[in-house]
């Protein structure tokens, strides 16, 4: 494996990072909206968001990407493959993050919400200043866990022809006929990206567990 191949893999690595970062950021915003709707107290809204979440949690990520990718094509939208894929991952992330944050919003002690209501804090301030900061803390380990899952999930963008790390690996391995070496290196690159996050996540988890004991 020459320098050129390695550089090609690194370029794929860059796109994996970009794709994961964009999807996670957009997914954070939409996921927060989903979590708030899911806990809004309006039955119809709660049911709809619950169905949205169940749909994404009960179907393969690969199918979600395919459906979003081809649905965008149906509307005749001329967009880059990577934007189509990023939209798919964003929707996926919004459902998972929405569910994680719903759990953490509900895990904030009831008295906190009641106290805020008793002080006649408006919904916006109640959420922003009382509930969400506490929920964020509770949700952090699971959120980091999902980020790792999302980074690994970006490898599926290879199926729709977007050249991120895994597809770059497939291309290089087809060229130099050393699949084990190439996929070994590709795996190591993912590991280098995901393992520190996983480690940080489990550290936080045990720290919080110790704090609440």
């Amino acid at each position, binding site marked *: 494996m020459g320098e050129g191949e390695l550089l090609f893999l690194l370029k794929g690595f860059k796109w994996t990072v970009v794709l994961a970062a964009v999807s996670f950021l957009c997914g954070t915003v939409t996921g927060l909206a989903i979590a708030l709707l899911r806990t809004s107290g309006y039955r119809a809204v709660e049911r709809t968001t619950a169905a949205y979440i169940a749909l994404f949690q009960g179907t393969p990520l*690969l199918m979600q990407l395919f*459906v979003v990718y081809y649905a965008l094509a149906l509307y005749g939208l001329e967009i880059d493959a990577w934007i189509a894929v990023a939209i798919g991952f964003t929707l996926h992330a919004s459902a998972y993050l929405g569910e994680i944050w719903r759990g953490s919003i509900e895990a904030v002690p009831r008295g906190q919400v009641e106290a805020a209501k008793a002080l006649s804090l408006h919904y916006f301030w109640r959420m922003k200043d009382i509930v969400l900061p506490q929920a964020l803390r509770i949700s952090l380990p699971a959120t980091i866990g999902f980020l790792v899952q999302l980074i690994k999930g970006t*490898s599926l963008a290879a199926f729709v022809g977007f050249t991120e790390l*895994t597809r770059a690996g497939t291309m290089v391995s087809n060229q130099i006929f050393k699949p*084990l070496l190439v*996929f070994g290196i*590709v795996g190591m690159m993912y*590991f280098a990206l*995901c*393992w520190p996050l996983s480690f940080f996540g489990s550290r936080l988890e045990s720290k919080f567990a110790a704090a609440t004991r």
Partner: protein
Amino acid sequence: MNYKFDFTPVIDGLPALLLGCLGTLWLALSGMALAIIIGIGGVILRDSRVKLLRWLVIGFVELIRNTPFLVQIYFIFFALPLAGVRLDPTPTAIIALGVNGGAYAIEIIRGGVQSINKGQVEAGLALGLHKLSVFRFIVLKPALRAVFPSLASQFVLLTLTTSIASAVSAYELTSVAKRIESDSFRSFEVYGVVTLMYLVMAWIVMNVLNFISSRYISYPAK
């Protein structure tokens, strides 16, 4: 949007798609069986007295949990022939699914084993139970009972992961769908219907696991 939906290729391909569903369920169930075996074996080795074994298990779990399944299945797909094992794509996919699910199962089951009070084990040994019986009845079964919900959702995830096995052209729903799609170019219709099929299968797997749990793992009903 002036696109006319045409579901004819999906309807014509329905028998093939349903067979694909069976393929997916077969992959998922065999993968789960392998994952459980690796999970229980891994938990035993994880607490072994040999330091090297403990580290190997930890390394295995971290490696699998921090790399994508797609890369793992490619690696196994190319590694097995080099190791002199020639298998069809479907058994290869089962091995990959089992290895992947096994790493998660080790973590989950270990959490349950750690929740078992040490006094229970000592009591079992004091009563003269064999070490294996102690492990089976006093450690493993209550541990599985405690972590069953996590294990079940991990296994539903494994069922959904089988779609990635289409990368090595194992026989399952996604490969069948790809074939129909490339013959008819009705991508949205085909994948839309197939997505719903996965939703139904995830629901079935969840219910089967709950049934197994209520039948063999939970305490008898009050």
